[in-house]
C-alpha cells in the first residue's frame, strides 16, 4: 500500500505539480512576461491579441506548433530522434522538479543536489544536439557555440548550486532540505556574514551562467537571428520546434525557481498556498531583474562571452564554493 502511494505521489509530482504541467504553465507565462517587459523596454507593444493583454499568446504558439501535421526538415536530419531527446530533456527537468518541496509529495536524500545537476544536464545536451544533429550550417554553428559556452556555464551553475546548498543545508547537501528548512546561522553573526557573502557571490555567478544557459542577451550567440538565422532552431518546424520552445521555457522556469528560493531563503518553500505564492513572487522579481539587466546589453562574440563567463561566473562560483567551506 505504501509503495502504491509512493508511485502515485511520484507520478503526480513529476507529471502535474510541481512537475511538467506546472512548469509548462509557469514557463509560458514567464515567456509572455519576458516578451512584454522587453517590448516595454524597447518601446514596443509585445504580445497583444490572444487572451487578456496577450497572456495566452505563448500557449497558442506552442499549441499550434505541437499539432502541425507536417514537419519539414533536411534530408539527413534524424528529426524523430531529436524530438525524443527534446522530450527527454523536458521529462528530466520535470523529474528534477520532484525534489522541490512545493507539493504534498516530494523526494529527498542526502546529496540530492547532485541528482538535480545530473537530471538538468539532459536538457542542455538536448539543446546542443538539436543544433549539432542538423546538416545545415546554421544550426551546426548554433550547436557548436552552445556547446562551447556549456563547457563554462555548466560547471559554474553546478559549483554555485553546491555552494548555495552547502551554506543552507551544510550537513546533508540536500536541495530539498535547503529549500524547505534552510539553516540561517542567526546565533553566529560571523559565520552568518560569511554565509550571506557566499550566497551573494554564488547568486551573481549563477545568474550570469543562467543568462548563457537560457541564451538571453548578451549571451544569445547560439540563436543569434541576424548571424546564424536562429541557430539551433533554424531547421526545426512543427512539433520539433514546439517541443524545443517548451524545453527552453521549462528549463528556465525550474532554474529561476530554484535560484529565487535559494537566494532569498525566507520564507522557506513549502506546500502551503501562501508560501507557494510568496515563492512565485520571488520568482517573478528575480526574472524581472535578470531580464532588465540582460536586455540593457548588446550581444557579445563567442570569445568575449567565454572570457566574461570564465572571469565573472566560473571564477566567482569557484570562490563561492571554496568560501562555503568556511561557514
Amino acid at each position, binding site marked *: 500500500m505504501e509503495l502504491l502511494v509512493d508511485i502515485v505521489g511520484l*507520478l503526480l509530482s513529476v507529471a502535474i505539480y510541481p512537475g511538467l504541467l506546472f512548469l509548462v504553465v509557469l514557463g509560458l507565462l514567464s515567456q509572455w512576461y519576458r516578451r512584454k517587459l522587453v517590448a516595454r523596454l524597447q518601446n514596443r507593444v509585445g504580445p497583444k491579441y490572444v487572451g487578456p493583454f496577450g497572456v495566452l499568446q505563448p500557449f497558442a504558439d506552442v499549441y499550434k506548433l505541437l499539432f502541425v*501535421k507536417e514537419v519539414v526538415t533536411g534530408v539527413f536530419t534524424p528529426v524523430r530522434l531529436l524530438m525524443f531527446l527534446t522530450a527527454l530533456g523536458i521529462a528530466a527537468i*520535470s523529474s528534477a522538479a520532484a525534489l522541490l518541496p512545493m507539493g504534498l509529495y516530494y523526494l529527498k*536524500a542526502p546529496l540530492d543536489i547532485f541528482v538535480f545537476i545530473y*537530471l538538468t544536464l539532459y536538457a542542455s545536451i538536448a539543446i546542443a544536439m538539436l543544433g549539432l544533429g542538423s546538416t545545415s550550417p546554421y544550426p551546426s554553428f548554433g550547436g557548436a557555440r552552445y556547446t562551447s559556452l556549456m563547457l563554462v556555464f555548466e560547471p559554474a551553475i553546478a559549483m554555485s548550486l553546491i555552494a548555495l546548498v552547502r551554506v543552507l543545508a551544510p550537513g546533508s547537501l540536500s536541495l530539498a532540505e535547503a529549500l524547505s528548512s534552510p539553516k540561517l546561522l542567526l546565533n553566529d553573526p560571523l559565520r552568518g556574514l560569511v554565509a550571506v557573502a557566499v550566497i551573494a557571490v554564488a547568486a551573481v555567478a549563477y545568474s550570469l551562467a543562467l543568462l548563457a544557459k537560457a541564451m538571453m542577451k548578451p549571451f544569445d550567440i547560439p540563436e543569434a537571428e541576424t548571424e546564424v538565422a536562429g541557430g539551433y532552431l533554424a531547421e526545426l518546424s512543427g512539433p520539433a520546434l*514546439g517541443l524545443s520552445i517548451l524545453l527552453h521555457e521549462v528549463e528556465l522556469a525550474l532554474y529561476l525557481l530554484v535560484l529565487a528560493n535559494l537566494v532569498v531563503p525566507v520564507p522557506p518553500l513549502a506546500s502551503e498556498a501562501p508560501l507557494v505564492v510568496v515563492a512565485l513572487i520571488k520568482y517573478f522579481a528575480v526574472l524581472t531583474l535578470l531580464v532588465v539587466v540582460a536586455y540593457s546589453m548588446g550581444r557579445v562574440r563567442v570569445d568575449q562571452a567565454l572570457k566574461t563567463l570564465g572571469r565573472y561566473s566560473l571564477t566567482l562560483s569557484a570562490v563561492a564554493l571554496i568560501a562555503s567551506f568556511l561557514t
Partner: protein
Amino acid sequence: MDLPTLMLTLTATSFLLAVALWLPTARTSRIRRTEVYLSGEPQAHFKLSLVEVAWAIRYVMQRLYKTLVEQVQSGLFNDWFAFSLPYLLLLAVLLYMALGG
C-alpha cells in the same frame, strides 16, 4: 530514500515521461524532407570519402597538438602549472567532499 535509489527512480521516471510526451507528437506528424543546399549544385554532388574524413581528423589533431605544445608543453613549469591548477583544485574539493568534509 538513499541517493542511488533516488537517481534511478528519477531517471526511470524521466524516460517514461519522455516516451509519453514523444509518442503522440511523433505519430501525428508527417515528415517532408528537403534536399541539402549546395550553392545550387544538385544533391548528387554531396559525397564524403573516407580519405577526406581522415584528413579532417588529421587537421583537427594538428591544431590540438599545436595548442598543447605552444601553451602547455612550452618547457616552462609555470605554463603547465597554470593549465593544471583548475583541475587540481577541483580534485582537491572533490577529495575533501568524498572524505566527508
